[in-house]
């Protein structure tokens, strides 16, 4: 068959675009090179829905950030993704920085961001008692939010699949040809034909566009390291705390609660030439710690749960590249989607889907399209009565597998069985939070592995952390 569109990349942009296209009568295929969706930049970032005052007016970043920020809450509601409008603050530590905050406020207003105001240092500390006494003033952005980024990508892919999109994981697009008005994408698991190709390949968007015959894009991976703290520190701040942006380093190091109740600090910024190198470094960890401590001096290092690094895809243009390729008709690029890419992703997806509909001269609606996923509340979100009802129906919901995050066997099985469900340990973790807590899977990992093996009908030794090569066990005794 020939798909209407083949989407390359299962991050937030690719997955939400698949869902946006599934609204229409058309056939959609999403191919993802990793073993699972949400396994690239979408899994390791700040998880922040930016208000939209950072980017220069008129830029794609500004436009799609503001549009995305407006719809994010409803998209998350539809897709059963945790989201909270917690508001954000940009701190100024000097008069010069306060002047920059005023410029940011003007820029934000021009971008169409509402709810911006400048408050004094003491007003900021009244809102956030943990802030440093050195804070002179702050830009308060009421529309800033936090969300779970990997849930957004995974749930969008699931929603797309439920609405008819085909999703193939573990399929790296190696070769793309265009013949007679049709693309042929050779991927690891087969060759697929499509009328349009949507390049949402994140760090590899330049490789994909080049493979299709468009040399105009160049992506530099920019690594950012993070430190994630125990939930007991999650209440240290309620807003997302930024520092006055630096001309080179961008938005700089933030201190934020995560939507799931942890405390997160980071990222730093280091340009790399290797798209896969998401290592943490001693220097990087020290740097973000020191910078975060400038904003919030009392973060207890003993509360650290884990450190990680994520890679942002930075285009040479330093703006999102969204739209039809000039060199290859029918190739639609969504490249250079670095920050505020997560916030912008729902708006970018709608825009890309709209371009396909327009190119097709209009498409009928998919009559059975359902934008919503069924709600799957986690145990801490359930009332005792509802939880007992759930256990009554399926006893596996009464068996707690991950004690740190209170995740049941029933929740884990469901996360594996659902459309575009988990296939490895990290996939279970992203969908259920099993292993995300303070013991980092020390207790639950063997049990999750056992459930994965049982659900997939494969031996323990084939179970992986994150796809091919990442086996957990080397063999039987």
């Amino acid at each position, binding site marked *: 068959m020939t798909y209407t569109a083949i989407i390359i990349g299962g991050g937030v942009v690719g997955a939400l675009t698949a869902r946006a296209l599934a609204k229409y009568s058309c056939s959609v295929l999403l191919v993802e090179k990793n073993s699972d969706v949400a396994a690239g930049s979408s899994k390791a970032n700040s998880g922040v829905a930016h208000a939209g005052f950072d980017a220069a007016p008129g830029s794609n970043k500004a436009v799609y950030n503001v549009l995305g920020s407006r719809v994010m809450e409803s998209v998350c509601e539809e897709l059963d993704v945790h989201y909270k409008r917690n508001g954000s603050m940009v701190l100024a530590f000097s008069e010069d920085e306060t002047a920059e905050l005023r410029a940011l406020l003007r820029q934000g207003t021009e971008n169409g961001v509402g709810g911006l105001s400048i408050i004094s240092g003491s007003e900021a500390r009244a809102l956030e008692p943990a802030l440093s006494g050195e804070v002179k003033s702050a830009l308060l952005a009421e529309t800033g939010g936090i969300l779970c980024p990997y849930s957004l990508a995974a749930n969008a892919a699931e929603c797309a699949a439920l609405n008819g999109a085909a999703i193939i994981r573990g399929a790296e697009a190696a070769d793309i040809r265009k013949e007679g008005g049709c693309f042929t994408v050779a991927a690891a698991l087969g060759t697929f034909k499509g009328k349009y190709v949507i390049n949402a390949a994140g760090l590899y968007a330049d490789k994909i566009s080049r493979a299709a015959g468009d040399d105009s894009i160049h992506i530099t991976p920019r690594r950012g390291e993070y430190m994630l703290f125990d939930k007991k520190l999650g209440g240290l701040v309620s807003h997302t705390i930024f520092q006055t942006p630096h001309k080179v380093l961008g938005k700089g190091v933030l201190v934020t609660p995560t939507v799931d109740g942890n405390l997160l600090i980071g990222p730093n910024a280091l340009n790399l030439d290797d798209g896969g190198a998401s290592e943490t470094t001693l220097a990087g960890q020290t740097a973000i710690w020191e910078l975060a401590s400038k904003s919030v001096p009392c973060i207890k290092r003993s509360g650290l749960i884990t450190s990680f690094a994520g890679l942002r895809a930075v285009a040479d243009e330093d703006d999102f590249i969204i739209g039809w390729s000039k060199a290859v008709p029918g190739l639609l690029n969504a490249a250079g989607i670095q920050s505020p890419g997560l916030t912008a992703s729902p708006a970018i997806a709608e825009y890309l889907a709209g371009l396909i509909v327009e190119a097709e001269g209009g498409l009928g609606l998919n009559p059975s399209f359902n934008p919503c996923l069924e709600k799957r509340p986690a145990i801490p979100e359930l009332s005792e009565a509802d939880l007992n009802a759930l256990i009554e129906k399926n006893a596996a919901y009464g068996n707690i597998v991950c004690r740190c995050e209170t995740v049941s066997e029933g929740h884990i099985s469901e996360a594996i069985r659902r459309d575009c469900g988990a296939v490895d340990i990290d996939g279970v973790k992203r969908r259920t939070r099993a292993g995300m807590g303070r013991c980092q899977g020390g207790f639950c990992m063997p049990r999750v592995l056992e459930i994965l093996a049982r659900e997939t009908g494969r031996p323990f030794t084939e179970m992986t952390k994150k796809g091919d090569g990442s*086996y957990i066990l080397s063999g039987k005794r």
Partner: protein
Amino acid sequence: MKTTDLAVIGAGPAGMGAALAARKHGVKDIIILERADKAGGILPQCIHNGFGLHRFREELTGPEYALRFLKAAEKEHIEIKLNSMAIEITPDLTVVAMSRENGVVRYRAKAIVLAMGCRERTRGAIQIPGARPAGVITAGTAQRFVNIEGYMPGKEIVILGSGDVGLIMARRLTLEGAAVKAVCEIMPQSGGLRRNISQCLNDFNIPLLLNTTVNEIHGRERVSGVTIARVDEKFRPVSGTELYIPCDTLMLSVGLIPENELSRAAGVELAENGGAKADRYMRTNVPGIFACGNVVHVHDLVDYVTDESEEAGKNAAYYILGRKTGGKGYTFHQKTPETDEALAVNERRLTCIVCPVGCNMIVRLDEKGGVADVSGNKCKKGGYYAIEEFTAPRRVLTSTVPYEFNRETGFAPVKTKGAMPKKLLIAAMGEIAKIRLNKPAGAGDVIIRDLLGTGADVVLTDDLPL
């Protein structure tokens, strides 16, 4: 809402010890909540020997130690609710528990004993930089995979941290055919018992690298190697001392932390180590809530956990029955510092492995290499051990064997009854590997008689499920 006199959280040695003591002091209505499908806490996976020397004056394996308490609890008709996870404790002494069978159940208790044990520190907590591949595993998790599930976590292993679990696993993985390349310890001395360094590392020529840490983890999908480095007195890696070791697994034995989520939720004050703060009667600041075992602080020996839990159980009983708390209470065991003096040419240092005291003995050799005399041993047994060690060294071997019957499959722990020649350990592993159990059996049952003609029988150390 159900009611009970005493709710004990955890059926490990601490919980069972406390429940038994409470029963002894007159508490009738006791319930132990255990999240696992088997009582014993961590002991069932601790198949090695060395437990019970203080308590029972004999050397037991983990499963055997647990079995003694389990049998006593059965005899006393103390109810152990398995597969039941306590998810919340409130300061008014209500325990919220969850299970497959009963869903969410609330127990209103007159007293509660916290006995949840401890958990392992992770890579994240100690911030080892580098990539995030599969193959970084804590020693306790590896122990579960090997001893309970019957799988190997890797083939070429570097261990960070010389805690006892790590040392025990170095030996266990070596006996199962893995190559343990080194044990790195950031401190100038090991945190493990001396006898474990002797039996688990020295016996197998596994190097213990002191003042050394893992500086970076390499590998994209699976660990491909680690960079180790010496550290300075502030534990910072010293530039120029880095060494790359290829391996597929980094195993962590970097400390244990008391479980404290439930303690905190119950309003129990925590000590600096993160554990529940308890006085010498094992009382916490919340009236009616007691704590014992590794939930208070991490113990070197389970024997001490038992002593402590009996104090907790007794005082919980006094509390329930309205008796006045009294007696001298429980004193925490303090580790005695271990110092080494200089040796003469004909002297050898030897750590006694006869008991956990691990006497630091000095063996003086005669011209022929025989033992002239032994000093530093606190008992006669140590002297005999030293002579034997220099002539024909012997060890107790522990392992597991697979069983399959009545649709039950799993691995059962075994040990040699008495010690066997050290040089035959690997050959003995080969003999034990041939065994498959296909009918019910119990602890103490002989599964190999006269192993390799050594005179030592191989016996089960746990009851198989019926």
